């Protein structure tokens, strides 16, 4: 059972020096570290239960199938989905969004229809819709974000969300701004005009308590690796009647009921949308990550993340010439900032010398960067194992960089 007092000790990769300094890992919005419990789950599966799932009649295959389907049930419970069948395992958020864009959007959108997005979307929640719009003749609309605070322009949203909008896809938490969008309110507005809602939860799942039924979303896309799970595994939550009505987006083994020379019949969801051998081991380890996070308590994780992000915002705001993005309070677990005279990549290179892992650049938000008149920002992002003391190390490193370049 993990506890806050030894949470750092649960993550073996944190226990190292970089360039002779203790690692201060602040690139969690890109990917978090993994707790030992997740590494153990992978190790255990490959050592003891490794076999392909489904249709297998031998002991190991049955064990692997039970563990894989158990992980699906675990993830469903983590998100409070109504049934395990509402979870489709994918490679991650990007693939989940592409699944909805490739299947639901292709089957349901027509010329004259509109897809509504926001200006704060990661490329993974923008480019798939550009492709879908090209295929179907639908158009794209964007809810503006307001200034550096990055809140959505809700008045503009009401003007944009007309009956032509068939799908509204938006990020729950902005990976660049740290803004938390009012997801339940946005889903309710979409529902009112008969639009399907798609929540990009890459930055919120495992950070904020998340309940798909309370949100009232139709689809929710998430990754495992941004909250302690392995890379290469994530999922799509979809309301069951939607998933069961959608055509397959990939064909192959495991997704069919009957195959003939000319055509085939599909299984219901989730198998319909999981052609081929799935990522069994990583799905099982994702289940272990759910256990780990729930033992810590997701409301406590959210409070810890917010406390650190607000502390960082306040501390960094004292640096001369800094431009901080996102709101000062009530923000998610990251701070994103820029200096007019020092480029993000120079900052990241320097901070690395102090053992501080940051990310600099456009954060897969090129159109938003252009709107804000920025070529990039530096981002520090936090998770369960980060401390107030590490924010002081970050601030000291930034102060050294400012002295060097000015």
């Amino acid at each position: 059972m993990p506890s806050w007092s030894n949470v750092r000790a649960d993550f073996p990769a944190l226990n190292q020096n970089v360039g002779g300094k203790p690692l201060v890992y602040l690139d969690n919005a890109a990917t978090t570290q993994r707790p030992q419990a997740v590494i153990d789950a992978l190790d255990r599966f490959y050592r003891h239960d490794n076999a392909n799932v489904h249709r297998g009649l031998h002991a190991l295959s049955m064990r692997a199938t039970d563990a894989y389907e158990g992980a699906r049930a675990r993830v469903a419970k983590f998100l409070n989905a109504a049934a395990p069948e509402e979870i489709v395992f994918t490679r991650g958020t990007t693939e989940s969004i592409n699944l909805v864009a490739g299947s639901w959007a292709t089957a349901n959108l027509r010329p004259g229809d509109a897809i509504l997005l926001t200006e704060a979307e990661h490329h993974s929640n923008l480019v798939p819709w550009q492709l879908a719009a090209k295929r179907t003749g639908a158009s794209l609309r964007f809810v503006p974000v307001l200034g550096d605070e990055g809140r959505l322009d809700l008045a503009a949203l009401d003007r944009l969300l007309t009956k032509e909008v068939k799908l509204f896809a938006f990020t729950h938490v902005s990976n660049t701004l740290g803004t938390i969008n009012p997801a339940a309110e946005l889903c309710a507005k979409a529902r009112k005009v008969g639009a399907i809602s798609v929540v990009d939860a890459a930055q919120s799942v495992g950070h904020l308590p998340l309940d798909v039924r309370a949100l009232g979303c139709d689809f929710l896309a998430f990754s495992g690796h941004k909250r302690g799970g392995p890379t290469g595994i994530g999922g799509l939550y979809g309301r069951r009647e939607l998933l069961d009505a959608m055509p397959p987006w990939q064909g192959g083994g495991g997704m069919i009921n009957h195959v003939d020379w000319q055509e085939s019949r599909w299984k219901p969801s989730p198998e319909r949308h999981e052609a081929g051998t799935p990522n069994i081991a990583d799905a099982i380890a994702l289940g272990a990550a759910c256990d780990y996070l729930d033992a810590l308590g997701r409301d406590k994780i959210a409070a810890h993340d917010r406390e650190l992000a607000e502390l960082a915002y306040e501390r960094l705001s004292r640096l001369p010439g800094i431009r901080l993005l996102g709101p000062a309070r009530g923000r998610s677990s990251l701070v994103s900032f820029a200096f007019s005279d020092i480029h993000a990549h120079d900052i990241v290179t320097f901070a690395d010398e102090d053992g501080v892992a940051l990310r600099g650049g456009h954060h897969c938000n090129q159109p938003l960067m252009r709107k804000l008149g920025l070529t990039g920002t530096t981002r520090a992002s936090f998770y369960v194992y980060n401390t107030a003391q590490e924010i002081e190390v970050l601030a000291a490193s930034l102060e050294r960089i400012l002295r060097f370049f000015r």
Partner: protein
Amino acid sequence: MSDLADLYQQVILDHNKRPRNRGRLPTANRVAHGDNPTCGDQCNVYLRLDGDRIAEISFDGSGCAISQASASLMTTQLKGRTAAEAAKLYESFHHIVTTGQAPDEISDLAAFAGVHAFPARIKCATLGWHAALNALKGDAAAATTETHND
């Protein structure tokens, strides 16, 4: 810190703070754009070719200290050179940033020798050069460091 001090030499910091030949060249008869999609770094190089010789050169764009300083220093090195001389100089420069070894006769560009310890930054240092070489070839299409790998 010693690797970093090597990377951010005084010459580089100076060119970053006070870039030479920065801005659009009104008399340019060749222009090329360079672009580093991973970083978002951008660089335009403007040339006025007099026959085969670079009579005037300037750059503009945005990016890290390494990319901006490198483009600035490059303009000071390329002015008055022929296309063949420019290509040869780039070869030397590429050797310097990938190996850290600078031949004796090349003094100014040697400031970039420290880049070799930071492989991810090599394309920052070469961005302006790619654009300049494309401009010399008369190829206005974007030089992207993703396809010209380094």
